[in-house]
């Protein structure tokens, strides 16, 4: 027994600072947040103790989820996530696929595709606000003007000003920034496949297309899953970009993170906390099965 402790004690000790920090800064704070969400603390006076605060358990959640405004935010979140994911996966995979086989200047292409990831959302917001300007025709500027200049005038549209699909336009800068990262993941995935596998397939008479489709693509599914999870959870936090481009007060591009910000500014801490909990639950529903799956897969 002492020998076991000597064996397990040190690693546990080594990892314990991280554990304690995360226990406090993640789980502890989440607990506090959840507690606030279960109260009726909607004014600043209550927060400083000058007015009574009572437990309302799930009332805030019921009210939020039933409100048309929040439902609109959720719908926007779904649209944004789907477009963002689809866009980055498509371009990332396409670029990796194009670059996998020997290409001259591969390093240049890779650097250029990867470069937007270096830019902060604050910085890219500055220019994308111009590009996504929704004027069309005579007064057009931004991408609409560019479309006119190159003869693609029919592509003009009102971008994020569209009350139903506007949020999809906000996904464009996000796709621009993150596709390079997905490309890097897939490229690493492609290159990580052992040479023997490719040789074996060729020996069996497969042509390039069949090689890709039946041998290489399936090997990439763990990489794809990784990419979906990492990129997907980023979309749930989408906030900086919307703040930069369309400003928080606009109804078209409202998402839950923006609602939380507005509640907070209105001193409505209980509802802000409730939105936080809802976001967390959405994340948990998507992430926890993934984590469990990794856990199980590794036991084999």
């Amino acid at each position: 027994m002492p020998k076991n402790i000597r064996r397990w004690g040190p690693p546990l000790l080594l990892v314990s600072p991280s554990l304690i920090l995360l226990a406090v800064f993640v789980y502890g704070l989440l607990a506090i947040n959840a507690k606030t969400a279960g109260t009726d603390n909607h004014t600043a006076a209550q927060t400083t103790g000058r007015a009574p605060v009572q437990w309302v358990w799930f009332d805030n959640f019921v009210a939020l989820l039933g409100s048309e405004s929040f439902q609109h935010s959720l719908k926007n979140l779904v649209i944004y996530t789907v477009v963002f994911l689809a866009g980055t996966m498509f371009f990332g995979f396409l670029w990796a696929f194009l670059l996998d086989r020997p290409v001259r200047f591969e390093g240049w292409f890779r650097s250029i595709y990867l470069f937007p990831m270096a830019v902060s959302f604050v910085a890219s917001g500055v220019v994308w606000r111009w590009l996504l300007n929704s004027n069309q025709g005579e007064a057009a500027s931004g991408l609409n003007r560019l479309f006119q200049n190159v003869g693609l005038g029919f592509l003009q549209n009102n971008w994020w000003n569209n009350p139903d699909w506007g949020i999809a336009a906000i996904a464009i800068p996000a796709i621009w920034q993150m596709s390079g990262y997905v490309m890097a993941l897939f490229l690493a995935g492609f290159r990580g496949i052992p040479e023997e596998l490719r040789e074996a397939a060729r020996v069996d008479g497969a042509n390039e297309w069949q090689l890709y489709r039946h041998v290489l693509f399936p090997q990439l599914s763990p990489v794809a899953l990784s990419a979906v999870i990492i990129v997907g959870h980023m979309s749930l936090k989408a906030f900086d970009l919307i703040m930069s481009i369309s400003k928080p007060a606009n109804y078209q591009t409202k998402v839950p993170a923006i609602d939380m910000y507005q509640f907070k500014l209105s001193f409505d801490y209980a509802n802000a906390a409730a939105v936080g909990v809802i976001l967390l639950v959405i994340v948990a529903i998507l992430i926890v099965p993934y984590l469990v799956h990794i856990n199980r897969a590794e036991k084999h």
Partner: protein
Amino acid sequence: MATAYDSLTEPIKAAPRTGGGTAGRDRVTPGRIAKYALLLLFVVIVLIPVYVLLVTSFKGTGDADPSRAWSLPQVWTLENWSGAWAALQAPLWRTIALVVPSSLISAILGSMNGFVLARWRFPGADIIFTLILFGMFIPYQAVMIPLVQLMLNSGIPSGVPTLIVLHVIYGLPITTLIFRNYYQSVPNELVEAARVDGAGMLRTYWSVVLPISVPSFVVVLIWQFTSAWNDFLFAVFFSSSRNGPVTIALNNLANGAMLTDYGISMSGALLASLPTLLVYVLLGKYFIGGLMSGSVKG
């Protein structure tokens, strides 16, 4: 025969030979022309925003207007760049002072965690890893207000010191993830051999594992550098324009004035992105190489 171990020491593997009878490497086929055309088209598309940023940064006031976004400057001027440099110089240095220590510390901690959770295990290691990993996915807004209270009570000065602490703590999940996956792809024999020789955990880590961790360190450092450099949420809450990083200063520059100076905003945006851009240009191939060595597999 190439092994996973070899890839640890090369920055990037060369693309596999196409082999096969008909597709020679240098043959100009319609397929290859189409491929290059496609790649070039994407380059143009990706660089469109950069073109606007660059071109506007050289325009004087009046010229730097959305209606003239696509035209070249009527008069090329450097005043935006000097203005942006003057405004962003001090914040840039502060950001470096914030990003370098926090990346290094979180990389080291992540490496130790990853090693312990992957190779020097203990009961409950997997559960603990899952608990750590979950921290990566929380929306930060959910903890912001109690966090502010907590950091105030901690006595750590606001600005760079607080931000270093926060980036280290909230970087722990992703750095642990990357290192753990990486160490799982390292052959177990290495660690076992050391154990058999009687080396303790720390000794094994120091003399056996750490030396071969370079590719993973590169990935983690690049990732942490970028995410800390571009962070805005923590910067807004825990620092001010006097002691904060470049994202705050850039926001002031771009959104602060009653009448937005577009020229200086765009040059500021480029200036603020330059360091991370350099990191990617210089270390990009190591990034991919590191990813390849199993750091972020599923």
